[in-house]
């Protein structure tokens, strides 16, 4: 336990959970009966009491200036009694009592460049991470790719024309802060070169045992470099996970020519229909090509298009692929199947095709 000077305020926790709730929600808390779709980005929850709450959802870049936040606040004052919220995918939602306010609010949002949508069978906001804006570990930027991809897919945000929800996530390194491992489409920054070892500073800034233990493949071995205790990396054993760098700043993996992106598909989180699934590798590597990453944008758009054309109603990406089989997925998308697609990690054997079930 810690002693604090008494006047300091600590450990108060977040504001009480009901502090910022709109009156209509306070009145009908836990009493919602059903909801109706009104338009893309707009839905209405009806309470047992008969009261109706209208939600208008708009896109957000997630990285927001106080200027924009104040503008959201002003919109809320104008249309939703000063009440708004953000979603688990970082969209902003205005909570309206008066249906008449929907249209004017939508107009103002859209006019200012904040599309309304992301509901039902649409593509919602891309869960993403810091990238070059704030993280030391990133193999790529986050916000820039998200912007480029969503520019290309924005119509799928403002319409609801997909077979099912389609969730895209991006993480800028294998730490996967975006938890992209269960997304319909995941964009993941990857390194392809072993860490460069900064022998001069390593002994000063890193704990050798921790560093050596950090490597899942045991590629890091102790080594004395001109007198100083340091380490070496057995390159053939390195799969570029970056865990060593996380525990030791003297092991950077960044490498402009070799860092890039990989694309993963077919994951989901919900228990709806099929159980939650991990995303699986679709494209092992695409180049890091700022400011608009055309290779990544095209790859994602292609997968979305093929899915939209072939999947059945209410079939998530992964459910569709499981129905048609992975060979067909690669065929339809024109994505090349490579040695990298074949798992060679812990449970690899269970991903081999262990039956004679084959489509020809």
């Amino acid at each position, binding site marked *: 336990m810690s002693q604090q000077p008494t006047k300091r305020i600590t450990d108060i926790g977040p504001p009480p959970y009901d502090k910022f709730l709109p009156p209509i929600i306070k009145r009908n808390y836990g009493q919602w009966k059903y909801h109706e779709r009104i338009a893309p980005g707009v839905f209405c929850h009806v309470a047992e009491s008969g009261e109706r709450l209208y939600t208008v959802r708009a896109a957000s870049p997630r990285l927001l200036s106080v200027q924009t936040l104040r503008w959201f606040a002003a919109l809320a004052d104008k249309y939703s009694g000063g009440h708004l919220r953000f979603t688990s995918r970082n969209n902003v939602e205005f909570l309206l009592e008066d249906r008449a306010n929907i249209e004017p609010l939508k107009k103002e949002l859209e006019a200012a460049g904040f599309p309304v949508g992301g509901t039902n069978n649409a593509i919602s906001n891309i869960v*993403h991470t810091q990238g070059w804006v704030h993280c030391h570990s990133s193999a790529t930027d986050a916000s820039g790719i998200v912007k480029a991809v969503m520019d290309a897919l924005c119509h799928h945000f403002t319409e609801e024309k997909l077979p099912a929800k389609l969730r895209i996530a991006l993480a800028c390194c294998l730490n996967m802060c975006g938890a992209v491992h269960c997304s319909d489409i995941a964009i993941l920054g990857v390194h392809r070169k072993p860490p460069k070892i900064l022998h001069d500073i390593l002994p000063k800034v890193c704990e050798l045992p921790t560093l050596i233990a950090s490597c899942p493949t045991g590629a890091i071995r102790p080594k004395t470099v001109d007198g100083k205790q340091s380490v070496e990396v057995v390159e053939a054993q390195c799969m570029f996970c970056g865990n060593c760098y996380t525990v030791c700043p003297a092991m950077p993996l960044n490498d402009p020519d070799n860092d890039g992106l990989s694309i993963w598909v077919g994951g989901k989180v919900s228990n709806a229909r099929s159980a939650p699934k991990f995303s699986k590798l679709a494209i092992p590597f695409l180049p890091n090509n700022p400011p608009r990453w055309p290779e990544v944008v095209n790859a994602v758009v292609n997968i979305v298009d093929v899915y939209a054309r072939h999947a059945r109603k209410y079939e998530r990406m992964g459910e569709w692929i499981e129905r048609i089989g992975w060979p067909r997925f690669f065929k339809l998308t024109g994505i090349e199947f490579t040695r990298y697609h074949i798992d060679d990690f812990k449970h690899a054997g269970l991903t081999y095709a262990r039956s004679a079930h084959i489509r020809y």
Partner: protein
Amino acid sequence: MAEDGKVKTPLLDQLESGPWPSFVTEIKKARASSPVCDDLLGQLELSYEEKRGHWKHGGIVGVLGYGGGVIGRYSDVPEKFPNVAHFHTMRVNMPAGWFYTSDALRTLCDIWERYGSGLTNMHGSTGDIIFLGTTTDKLEPCFQELARNGFDLGGSGSAMRTPSACVGQARCEWACYDTMQMCDRITREFQDELHRPPFPYKFKIKFAGCPNDCVASIARADLSVIGTWKDDIRQDDAAVAEYAAQGLDIQKDVCERCPAKCMSWDGRRLTIQNSECVRCMHCINVMPKALRPGKERGAVVLIGSKAPIVQGALLSSVLIPFVPEEELYDTLVELIRRVWEFWDEYGMNRERVGELIQRVGMANFLDAIGLDPQPEMISAPRDNPYIFFQSEESK
């Protein structure tokens, strides 16, 4: 920096066009109130040119008496961009369900304008309000002003991370327990573990009101609490007929998509064999006016999910198949303490609880936290004959 004091960002500027809102525009907006944004843009432009980040490994910075809530960050080109030489992040514990009033939002903006870059993430992917970019000296005063206004910091490091919850009963008819309240109570109960990292590694908790899992708890939380129900789905036949009348293909889009194949539609009546239903939500999702979760509500508690570093990604798995709503809080507090106790003692450095369970085995873990094995915890029994028979049992 460019001569005229304004940085040129030809690459970033290309990200201001297009229909999707632009983070570049946001950073530029913030320039009005904070000069550091110029250097942030400058360094970011440099990253775009060179295709590499320019941040150094974060150092340990924070506020008095807390071990977390701040991510230290330093530029590796401070000479070029002195204003972002130090550019720490503050994690502020968001209100449950991410609800705000315009006043609350403005208060946060004023504080952050005063003490930081004026740039935020609403929100970080654990759920916190992210205040992006300030210097070490500003941390404490900023924290105290936040506190005076009713806000506290969130988690970082080897601590309980800021718990989060789906909107739940505040706006969702399907919430089988009060996610926001539960999140609030658990967060308060464990303030010390949140602010003063006591563990081998991070511990995340997420609350979802139903199996749709709108906070991705099963993929992103060491402890995942997912609402569900025990009795029958509530069914309104008139409403079902309405959906059919409106053209919903109940056979194809509902019955055939039911994973338990426990629904039948004869063109007039929908029959659900509830004993077979696995509570997946699909039919309810498709016909919210006609079908609703039952009334005997509670939650299934799952444990262990995480991202791949370093033993491979994990999904949470069932630990308690069903906890009635009214017993949920006490059960969770008790369970969490036991899990932490075991993890504390046996967890290795940077070993998440899910990885620990994989290492020691679920059965031993259950023993340790005092739960009995139940078939609901597994998708199938072992298929290998390598059973560690306990010597008590053999003679």
